């Protein structure tokens, strides 16, 4: 591998490798046989992409050809950090990322963590077909869309100057950020940073003393949790908060509570309208059960399930609400690698298939990098940084907060 890198030119004419296809609304990038031997080349590449995007304006999907593309280990970090630019990638199976064994292992792990698995296709035609479907679903660009001047932002949730106190303890201090429709936002920060409090404020469980929350364009003052739920905010919890005495099926069915209306007398009779309603919702719930691959535990009381499955059932219960905004509080805490991968896949699929906007709290930075398009960092109740994951990861303020040096 070493000799490959040595033989490589230090400059590549990226400009000629980027083409616009206005019919498909696709920016096609040909990286075949390119060897990213160092960080400088990576920087050149992304600079060129940025330049071209600024020139073209508007929204574009990215289609990248990775045939025989190689990324050297030292360049990998930078490459991956901004790699999510690409919505769809393809290669004939000869893409090589990195060179050393360790890097390859790392890449394999990351590749398994969904990001490449879901977007990497073998041929250009396959990739194009997927693009067509994605466009039909009105999918937005991935990361970078925030800075895209050509797009009018669709703000789903706006947190404005929110402060929350418990007695003398400041849980949140003048926190502001926005969540756009269709994106996955991660809220990160050290323990006790106020992340869960933030989610609690969003769905009305806590009431902020100062500041305002605007959801779907409506400013809401003191709101009860069930009203937040009825407006389309779903939620899972840090310590699984399932209904322990109920079966998986009943737990997920209870997520449909807001959608079922037949009265007490019909319920008493069961036959007729109540049963019809029950069965309609049962079908919707069965689709979720199917989607989360938990058919086998349908009738098992959730108290008896292992932790990983409980988390999955909880996600199912939240999905049953068909929320517009889904708040996930540490969806992968305490999971092993395999379970994390599964959960990541479900989260991406939810975002992808149902267009659900997701705000999640997560400690595993790998997961945050892979899943989210935007990151908000809290520390001691204060927002210390926000931005795309790659930027945030290298923000010295964030690094300091995590390492606990100086405030």
């Amino acid at each position, binding site marked *: 591998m070493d000799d490959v890198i040595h033989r490589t030119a230090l400059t590549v004419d990226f400009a000629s490798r980027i083409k616009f296809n206005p019919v498909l609304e696709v920016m096609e990038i040909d990286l075949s046989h390119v060897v990213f031997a160092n960080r400088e080349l990576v920087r050149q590449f992304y600079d060129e992409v940025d330049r071209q995007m600024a020139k073209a304006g508007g929204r574009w999907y990215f289609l990248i050809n990775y045939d025989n593309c190689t990324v050297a280990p030292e360049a990998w970090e930078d490459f991956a950090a901004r790699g999510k630019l690409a919505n769809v990638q393809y290669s004939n199976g000869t893409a090589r990322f990195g060179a050393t064994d360790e890097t390859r292992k790392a890449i394999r792990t990351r590749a398994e963590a969904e990001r490449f698995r879901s977007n990497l296709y073998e041929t250009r035609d396959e990739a194009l077909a997927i693009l067509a479907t994605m466009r039909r679903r009105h999918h937005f660009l991935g990361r970078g869309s925030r800075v895209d001047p050509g797009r009018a932002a669709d703000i789903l949730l706006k947190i404005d100057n929110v402060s929350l106190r418990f007695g003398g303890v400041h849980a949140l201090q003048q926190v502001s950020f926005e969540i756009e429709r269709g994106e996955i936002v991660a809220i990160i920060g050290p323990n006790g940073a106020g992340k869960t409090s933030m989610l609690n404020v969003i769905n009305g469980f806590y009431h902020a003393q100062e500041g305002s929350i605007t959801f779907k364009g409506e400013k809401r003052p003191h709101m009860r949790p069930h009203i937040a*739920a009825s407006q389309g905010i779903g939620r899972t919890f840090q310590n699984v*908060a*399932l209904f*322990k005495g109920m079966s998986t099926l009943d737990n997920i069915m*209870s997520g449909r509570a807001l959608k079922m209306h037949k009265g*007490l007398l019909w319920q008493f009779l069961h036959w007729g309208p109540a*049963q019809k309603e*029950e069965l309609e919702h*049962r079908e919707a719930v069965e689709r979720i059960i199917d989607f989360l691959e938990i058919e086998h535990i349908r009738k098992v009381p959730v108290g008896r399930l292992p932790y990983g499955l409980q988390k999955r059932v909880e996600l199912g219960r939240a999905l049953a609400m068909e929320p517009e905004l889904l708040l996930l509080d540490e969806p992968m805490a305490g999971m092993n690698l395999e379970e994390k991968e599964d959960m990541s896949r479900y989260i991406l699929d939810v975002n992808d298939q149902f267009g659900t906007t997701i705000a999640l709290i997560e400690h595993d930075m790998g997961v945050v990098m892979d899943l989210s398009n935007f990151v908000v960092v809290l520390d001691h109740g204060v927002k210390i940084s926000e931005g795309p994951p790659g930027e945030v990861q290298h923000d010295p303020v964030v690094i300091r907060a995590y390492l606990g040096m100086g405030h």
Partner: protein
Amino acid sequence: MLYREVGQFKTSYAADQAIFPIAQDRWFVIALLLVAFLVVPFFVTAYTANAILLPFLIFGLAALGLNILTGYCGQLSLGTGAFMGVGAYSAFKLMTAMPELNLVIVFLASGVITAGVGMLFGLPSLRIKGFYLAVATLAAQFFLVWLFYKWGWLRNYSATGQITVPPRTFFGVLMTGSSAAPAAKYLLALAMVTVLALGAKNLVRGRFGRSWMAMRDMDVAAELMGIRPLPAKLSAFGVSSFYIGVAGAMMFTLWLGAAEGGDTFGIQNSFLVLFMIIIGGLGTVLGSFLGAAFLVLMPIVLKNTMVDTLGMTAVFAKHLEYVIMGLLIIFFLILEPHGLARLWQITKEKLRLWPFPY
């Protein structure tokens, strides 16, 4: 016939959601009901009706009511005795004010009145929880019993302080008083209980049942799922009190014939019914009736053994009965905290796999 579900495939969600999804269960219950309706009436005597069958049915119904509130919705109540009293006094007022009213309508209307009272006393549950709420329901218990004594209008100002059931017929058959046929009383009570138990089963497997259980298991999460605490808890209080009220009305009209404030509807009944659902199993319809059967039969068996067989004095036997009853309750709690219904379920699970242990 072997107890197996092999070969019974569900082809629709409706079949999967049936009350008794396993065919053998279904047949067993149907057979049981047939015997109860068609065979038992021929063997009913005044003693079996008044000492065993009516108490069993009526307490079973009251236990079912309390189980909806405590077992399903997780709200501990110690006011059952007084709520049965509300049902009884309502029945008395309705029967004396409107002599022509059909008995079933009297029962149901008494239930509705009790439901109203129950919901009123359920309001504190929105702010207080657990044992604090249990103690708050004691307020209902004592206040209502006091009202039964003090408010003469409730008993039509009867000089004895008692209420006594007037003679009433149901489609031409005399139902109340000591001269009514025991079999007739039994059949009416059985029919009421069967229909109401079926309805309760329907309720608890539908959206109301789920919202109650959600409140019980994790009220915070339930609220964040959009289940509002007020309707969920109050509906549980209402439905529960309805059942308890109907039970109280039947207790007065069909079983006792006369009643007096705290003597009949005192706190001891609240505890008795609570014992029934704990021993039978919290959060199961079946458990309510198993618990009622156990606690109705046990004192009879104990008394028969100790006084008639062993020749103890009645007083001594009564005290010993207390000790044994208390010990049995403790023993049951240690043996199977989830009650008789759970034992029954475990047996069924074993039976399904029999003769293999796993």
